[in-house]
């Protein structure tokens, strides 16, 4: 090659390709399902160890996807009384409870103006498929207030198509403030005990101040209630990932 000067140009090596190691990126972000973490108590850790083995065994056969409260899921269960022996329910996950094999999650949907909630057990052999239709974390851990919110916030189309997700890094947080039906509600959600950030309270200032009377600001400093799970989580994460790789 001859440059404009007439002299042979210096050899320019081609630019180095940038290698994005996707496997490494995926390992950095790890999600441990909350039912693996044992509750604080005096039970023998052997019981939790055996339970975890059973949970890993079930997860090898059947894939339980990663999901949080606020995701829209579609669950198909085997039902002897259904038409095609298969029952499909779509709903938003309101809460995840229970530890170990009895872990449950509640799905809520409004069908034909009737609110329906079903509590499913994660490790029940009747469940045949769990699909995540919409990935979206909400501001709270517990969306029980959707029962007292306007029904438009709990309606989800049964034939909704799964929203595709390209980024494997973060789960988007929906900062939606939900509008409520007029009082009375099933629980007094304005009280600081529930610590709800996802409601747009249209109550007068006087009522909000009155609700703060029940606040217990000393609770966050109570050392006997502290339960540091970071080390336990690390151990269990290693155990679970090794168990699943086999």
């Amino acid at each position: 090659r001859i440059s404009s000067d007439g002299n042979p140009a210096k050899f320019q090596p081609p630019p180095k390709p940038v290698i994005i190691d996707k496997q490494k990126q995926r390992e950095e972000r790890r999600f441990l399902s909350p039912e693996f973490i044992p509750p604080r108590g005096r039970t023998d850790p052997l019981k939790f160890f055996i339970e975890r083995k059973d949970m890993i065994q079930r997860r090898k056969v059947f894939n339980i996807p990663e999901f949080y409260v606020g995701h829209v899921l579609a669950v198909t269960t085997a039902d002897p009384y259904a038409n095609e022996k298969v029952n499909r329910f779509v709903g938003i996950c309101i809460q995840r409870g229970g530890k170990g094999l009895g872990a449950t999650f509640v799905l809520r949907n409004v069908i034909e103006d009737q609110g329906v909630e079903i509590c499913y057990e994660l490790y029940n052999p009747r469940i045949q498929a769990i699909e995540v239709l919409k990935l979206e974390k909400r501001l709270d851990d517990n969306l029980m207030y959707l029962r007292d919110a306007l029904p438009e916030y709990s309606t989800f189309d049964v034939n909704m198509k799964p929203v595709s997700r390209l980024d494997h890094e973060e789960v988007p947080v929906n900062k939606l403030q939900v509008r409520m039906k007029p009082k009375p509600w099933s629980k007094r959600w304005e009280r600081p005990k529930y610590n709800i950030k996802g409601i747009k309270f249209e109550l007068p200032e006087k009522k909000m101040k009155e609700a703060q009377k029940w606040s217990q600001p000393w609770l966050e400093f109570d050392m006997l209630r502290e339960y540091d799970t970071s080390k336990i989580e690390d151990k269990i994460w290693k155990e679970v990932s090794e168990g699943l790789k086999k």
Partner: protein
Amino acid sequence: SITGACRAIQKLTRVRVVDNSTLGNTPYHRPPKCIHVYNKTGVGKVGDKILLAIKGEKKKALIVGHKMPGPTMTPRFDSNNVVLIEDNGNPIGTRIKTPIPYILRQKEGEFSKVLAIARNFV
């Protein structure tokens, strides 16, 4: 006043009639209430028959959903739903729009006609 507590259906619970019968849908100044539950215990769950007082008349009805959480994998409704029935088990209405739990199919012999008019199942 509005009571909370026992969320399954017992005497004096206000119920919501879910089929399209005239008795169930015409407005009246008093809501339909349960007077008697045909059960050993006085508490009615899904699939039990009850006696309702609607518009000054007594009618039998079948419970299709209640607010009380039942066994896992069964649906829990936001209102106490009921379908009006004759003494021999024939439903009075012709269509049921609201979703009905699949568990009712267990006792297909008694409720086959009610299940035939139901549109949605949960």
